[in-house]
């Protein structure tokens, strides 16, 4: 009988190794699981975590502690310094949000082509379609609930120039918020091309 109980005990211990709900389960070689250098999207703020196998007791925190105390909120990632320009990309768009009228004179740096339109359609389906709808009528799955999404071919906006569209994607207008942080400048100009085809329909 004792043997049976012992066996059942072993099974229960082993089963409890697996991950479930809030418990990530037992790690096989934890020192090799947790990154020593800062990693994006993983941050261990608790200094106690991993102190039971600390390989460097002098650093004053546990093995798995991984936060940068010099960043705001001890984040491991940091925003680029203000006014830095990214390499290998077009120059930043400097017009502030309130210069909507000025933006009308901004010209697109990309040429019209079949390929651009194809790529633009993919981008449109990623970033715009759920509000603006397949045909830009403002009837996307979210747009119906969000309300107030203007159809591209409606009288008020169908003649807006490319610079205007780019500015609105970047900074938003009315109920729409700016999408400049999500979509790169090149991709925004591509989306403008596709939106123009929907304006003309």
């Amino acid at each position, binding site marked *: 009988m004792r043997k049976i109980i012992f066996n059942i005990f072993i099974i229960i211990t082993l089963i409890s190794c697996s*991950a479930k709900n809030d418990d990530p389960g037992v790690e096989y070689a934890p020192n090799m699981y947790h990154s020593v250098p800062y990693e994006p999207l993983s941050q261990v703020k608790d200094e106690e975590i991993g102190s039971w196998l600390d390989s460097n007791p002098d650093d004053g925190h546990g093995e798995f502690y991984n936060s940068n105390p010099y960043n705001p909120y001890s984040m491991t990632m940091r925003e680029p310094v203000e006014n830095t320009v990214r390499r290998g990309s077009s120059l930043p768009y400097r017009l502030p949000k309130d210069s909507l009228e000025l933006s009308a004179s901004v010209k697109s740096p990309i040429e019209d082509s079949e390929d651009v339109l194809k790529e633009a359609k993919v981008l449109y389906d990623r970033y715009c*379609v759920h509000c603006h709808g397949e045909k830009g009528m403002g009837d996307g799955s979210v747009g119906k*609930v969000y*309300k107030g999404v203007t*159809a591209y071919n409606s009288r008020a906006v169908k003649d807006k120039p490319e610079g205007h569209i780019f500015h609105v994607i970047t900074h938003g207008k009315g109920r729409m918020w700016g999408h400049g942080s999500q979509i790169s400048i090149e991709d925004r100009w591509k989306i403008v091309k596709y939106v123009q085809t929907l304006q003309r329909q």
Partner: protein
Amino acid sequence: MQTKPTKLLVHFGVPFSQFFGLILLSILLSIPYQIIAQDEESQEYDPSVVKNGENLFKGNCTVCHAINEVVIGPALKDVHERQTEEWIYAFIKNSQKVIKSGDEYAVNLYNEYNKTLMTSFDFSDEELNAILTYIKDESSREIQVVVADANQGLEGGEVSSVSSDNLYISLGLNLILLLIIIFVLFRFTNLSKKYVLLKDNQSKGKLLDEEDLEVVKSQFNIKKFIKSNKFVGITSFIFIAVFVKSCIDGLYTIGIQQNYQPTQPIAFSHKIHAGQYEIDCNYCHTGVNISKSANIPSVNICMNCHGVINTDKPEIQKILTAYEENRPIEWVRVHNLPDLAYFNHKQHVAVGGIECATCHGPIEEMDVVYQYSELTMGWCINCHRETEVNAKGNDYYKKLVELHNSSSKKPMKVEDIGGLECSKCHY
């Protein structure tokens, strides 16, 4: 005057109350006709103008306005009774101008509707007249529409509640059926035993010999059964098999976080966002095509919609406060690939053309996200052995594919271009 009918009722008793009821009924019946009559009255508007106005209204106005409910802007029922036609036309043409001119009604309207500016529309006076005519026409006939909508809502509710109950009812019925079968079988054995014994008695013991009688009269002996070699053998085999299997399974779960489903600081549901509203994964996980990590969206991406939607709900309030304080939300990471292995999203999604769901599973059905795949080395290797390289339209692979095809008839798999090399993932 009002007391008269009651007095009459008392005097004439039952017959008159019936008569009175008839009158009431006839009045009730006549009400729908009155509405229709009203509709006919509203036909004084030129149908072609109304039709033109309807097209213009539906093409330009419905995103922000409805006749009977507030959408973004005010409900437009009887708008012509609130302001003069000149005022309405001026507001539609350039609302900003009217507000800036200090018009009290316009300024109040602007403040009441969250300072949202109405887009300017350069309609001609004729078109404006058509739109207003359409609104006037709609204003006079809204009652029936509302009733129809309410009925639809009720029917929908009933249908869904019945379908969810059906499951439990069928389960219960199955259970009852099972119990009845067991009971009937039990009764049947008992009855047949009794019947055989009765027949045996009638034939004075000629029907059954000693052995038969032993079978018929045998009682089920649990103690004897348990101690029998067969039972001990079978049970110990099952026990050992289950034990060994559970031990092996248990050992295999060490270091595997499949099904890890941490509670997140905000009860965000992928089922609603990716499932119901079909928002593309890329909209929030913007890094997936351009970097190693797919990225957890920053607060401003949540605010793209939730600056407006459901701002009064407690879970959304958490986003709003984080946004106001410019503080990041501390989501709990679900997929913790060990630091000893390298994985790159861009390589798999942008170049390889792998769908998100291949590794992350049915995210659009998860309220709380859990780790769907094992993320073990065996799992990675297996996919690299089975998956063909997505070389279509990618000149980088052009010569590799030619080279591969010259020496092999099978399509080029990931393993053929070094997908199994140690240093690809471990360095």
